[in-house]
């Protein structure tokens, strides 16, 4: 353990911490599945993975709405003293990631609708199509879903690298603010 320079009040709230880690796992999982399934030939496995991917994506979208509402109504801990450029980059990364939490699943949803496969969440709740069924449109949307997902993963990598730098180079205990469990 590194020395902890934060007290309880400087940690994120329990809900924020829970959503952070839950969404981190879901996003990495759904990205991995998406990457693997994209070029699979027609099979039972492909059908299952595509549907699981969509269910997970819609779950991420729903949880991200909750998370944004929580974030908007609960002040996060104050910034650590750091060079201004680092604070700017950190905040920009966070907000871009938030934007992508919505953009990636929404674009995926649009792609699914355009391709003629409405999303049926967990096989039960059919979600409305907000774009028409249109093959050309689907082909236009598809690369954007992938590109935005990659952008999110690259930003997440940057975010993780920064957290590790705080933990192992700065040794300032920043990670403690988002560490699961009691403060």
């Amino acid at each position: 353990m590194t020395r902890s320079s934060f007290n309880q009040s400087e940690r994120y709230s329990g809900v924020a911490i829970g959503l952070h880690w839950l969404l981190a796992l879901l996003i990495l999982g759904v990205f991995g599945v998406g990457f693997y399934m994209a070029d699979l030939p027609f099979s039972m496995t492909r059908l299952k993975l595509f549907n699981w991917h969509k269910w997970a994506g819609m779950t991420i979208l729903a949880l991200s709405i909750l998370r944004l509402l929580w974030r908007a109504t609960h002040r996060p801990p104050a910034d650590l003293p750091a060079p201004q450029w680092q604070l700017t980059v950190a905040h920009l990364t966070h907000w871009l990631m938030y934007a992508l939490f919505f953009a990636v699943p929404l674009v995926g949803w649009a792609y699914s609708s355009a391709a003629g496969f409405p999303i049926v969440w967990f096989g039960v709740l059919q979600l409305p199509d907000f774009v028409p069924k249109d093959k050309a449109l689907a082909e236009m949307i598809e690369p954007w879903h992938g590109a935005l997902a990659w952008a999110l993963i690259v930003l997440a990598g940057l975010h993780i690298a920064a957290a590790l730098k705080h933990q192992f180079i700065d040794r300032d205990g920043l990670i403690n603010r988002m560490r699961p469990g009691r403060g």
Partner: protein
Amino acid sequence: MNTASVSSKFFKTLAAGLLVLGAGAALADQKIVPAQSDISFTSRQMGVPVDGKFKKWDAQIAFDPKKPETGKVSFTIDTGSATFGAAETDAEVPKAAWFNVPKFPQATFQSSAIKAAGPGKVEVTGKLSIKGAVHDVVVPVTLTQAGATTTAAGSFTIKRLDFKIGEGEWADTSMVANDVVVKFKLAVTGVAPL
């Protein structure tokens, strides 16, 4: 060639011709308008409705709205013409687990009874044959007329496993529902007024 044989041939031909004419009159020359007709189906995969249609089929119709019970309808559908609009799915359709097109290139329907079911409605009972399996189906049909065209439309549900459509791992109805909704719209000319 002697005269008797010529006249015999002539009368045979004439008789055959009259028979055809007679049948034609009974059919009142009813013809499908392909551009306004459609046979499609919806299956559910993990809850997701997936629409497909048959691009190639033909129907013979002899129907008198005044005497529906004398009518007859038959269909011949090229199973290999089924399409979901996606090349990778369409490539699966002819395979043995699905329609097994090389062995069963056609599906057929032959009506056995047609009865009136209210104004502009009839109920067609018949035998549906797909992939070597034959089952009775009852098909509610709604009739509408516009100008010279009569449109017969409706839908009915079949159990795909009754016809072994989707065998092996695909027989799992939790993945692909057993119920398949078949929808049809037939535009026909030459039908007497309703």
